[in-house]
């Protein structure tokens, strides 16, 4: 595929050797042929097939990673719990504790931003305001924003760290010494990021409600406690559980995708390439999960 696209034999699109550079030289004008429409259609179908196969294979990789890591919770590998506890606590510290201020601030701003158009359109009905704020903020915007912050702060760090371990042959070494590296290094990150997202999600929602409540109290003459009472009246148990499920799914998706892209690293130069790929895939996953949950709750 690489050669066909003018790249090197390893599949990359940059020439590495003199012979590769020769291959990528543009052909003289008189040798160029007009593109055959049938060939370009076939190539398009071929590319589509390649993309589908890659996506399917990555999905299987993610499921394997999830199953193999989760097996650590039931197989009780000797000495695993000690490291599971230690790395999980570290992950929660990096993901949740160190980000609480940032997430709180973002939540507060989101609350104000949600109230601005309502104020501009002179929507002053308390019940309607509470419904809009609760649905838009707690089910959609705030969890998604928290997920993006976690992807940017912790997800990319996980990809870079696991990528470094992969190039350092740590995974091979652990496996060769009878330690299951997925259970030692992936499982605690999976647990840590998922728990962190649950905590950060609720914290951000609280901050967002506070932001919206303060704005409505200052500019719409809605009393703060009346605003909170109206918001909590909108929230029912099913919706709270759905929010928790969404946040947990975000955590699992982010952890697995970023760990997988870290494990796909083959050499140090691969790490900067994998980071944005992991970011895009996990962010897309979170957007699709939000869409699915919103549709499910509204149908």
């Amino acid at each position, binding site marked *: 595929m690489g050669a066909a696209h003018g790249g090197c034999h390893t599949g990359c699109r940059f020439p590495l050797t003199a012979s590769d550079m020769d291959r990528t030289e543009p052909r003289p004008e008189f040798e160029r042929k007009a593109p055959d429409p049938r060939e370009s259609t076939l190539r398009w179908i071929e590319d589509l097939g390649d993309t589908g196969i890659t996506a399917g294979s990555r999905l299987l990789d993610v499921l394997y990673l999830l199953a193999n890591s989760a097996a650590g919770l039931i197989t009780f590998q*000797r*000495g695993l719990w000690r490291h599971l506890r230690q790395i999980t606590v570290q992950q929660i510290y990096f993901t949740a504790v160190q980000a609480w201020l940032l997430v709180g601030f973002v939540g507060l701003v989101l609350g104000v931003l949600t109230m601005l158009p309502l104020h501009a359109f002179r929507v002053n009905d308390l019940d309607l305001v509470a419904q809009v704020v609760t649905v838009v903020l707690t089910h959609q915007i705030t969890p998604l924003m928290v997920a993006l912050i976690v992807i940017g702060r912790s997800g990319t760090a996980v990809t870079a760290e696991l990528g470094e371990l992969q190039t350092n042959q740590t995974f*091979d070494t652990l496996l*060769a010494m009878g330690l299951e590296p997925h259970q030692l290094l992936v499982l605690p990150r999976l647990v840590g990021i998922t728990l962190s997202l649950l905590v950060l999600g609720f914290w951000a929602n609280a901050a967002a409600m506070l932001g919206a409540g303060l704005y409505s109290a200052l500019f719409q003459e809605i009393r703060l406690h009346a605003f909170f009472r109206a918001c909590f009246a909108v929230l029912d148990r099913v919706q709270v559980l759905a929010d928790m499920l969404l946040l947990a799914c975000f955590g699992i998706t982010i952890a697995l995708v970023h760990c997988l892209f870290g494990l796909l690293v083959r050499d140090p130069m691969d790490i900067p390439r994998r980071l944005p790929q992991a970011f895009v895939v996990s962010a897309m996953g979170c957007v699709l999960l939000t869409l699915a949950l919103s549709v499910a709750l509204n149908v």
Partner: protein
Amino acid sequence: MSEPVCELREILMPHQRGPVPIDAWVGAGEVLLIGGASGAGKTTLLKILLGLVNPRGGRVRLFGHELERLSQRALLRLRQRVGVAFEHDGLLPNWDVAENLALPLHHQRGLSARAARQRILEFARRCEFELVLLVRRVADLTGQQRRRVAIMRALIAEPELVVIDDFAAYVPADETERERLRATLAASAATLVCVAGEEMAPTFGARVRRECLLLGPSGGAARRGAMDA
């Protein structure tokens, strides 16, 4: 003749072009050196020996078990009797040295935190390793210190088999350091399989088998060279 700790029978490497299959075995407490040109498949052979890579043909026996007949879980348990130092050190760079050394003690030997700490201190003293480095992050160590820690981690849980890839990279330039490494290896009763040229044989003393497995450029066995250990 002692019972072989590991045995390779008519092994064909995954990408082998040459027709000569590889046969080798090593008995308890012995040292087997594997030599050959760059790209000959020395590291791949080590991975075949540990069941990390499947050969194209042949049989591998480790501690009397045929690897292809073992389940993944049984293979993992079998490997808990092995210490490994690959070409790159394979350490966890964000953990400190003591945590890295404790890993095989917890997982392979099932030691408690206190017992592991005692064993680490005793082993570091025996290897003349600076104790102050035990609390330092691996990422903050020099390359030579990291390689030393990697060898120590491979040996600390007293595994029955130790596999070292690219042994030359682990041999320090400094004579005192080299003597320390020699003493550390000599104190271990483990069977050793090392990727190393015949010139490295004196480092291992009299335990080296009198023949060295040499791989040809095409991946098959070139010859089993005799050496004077």
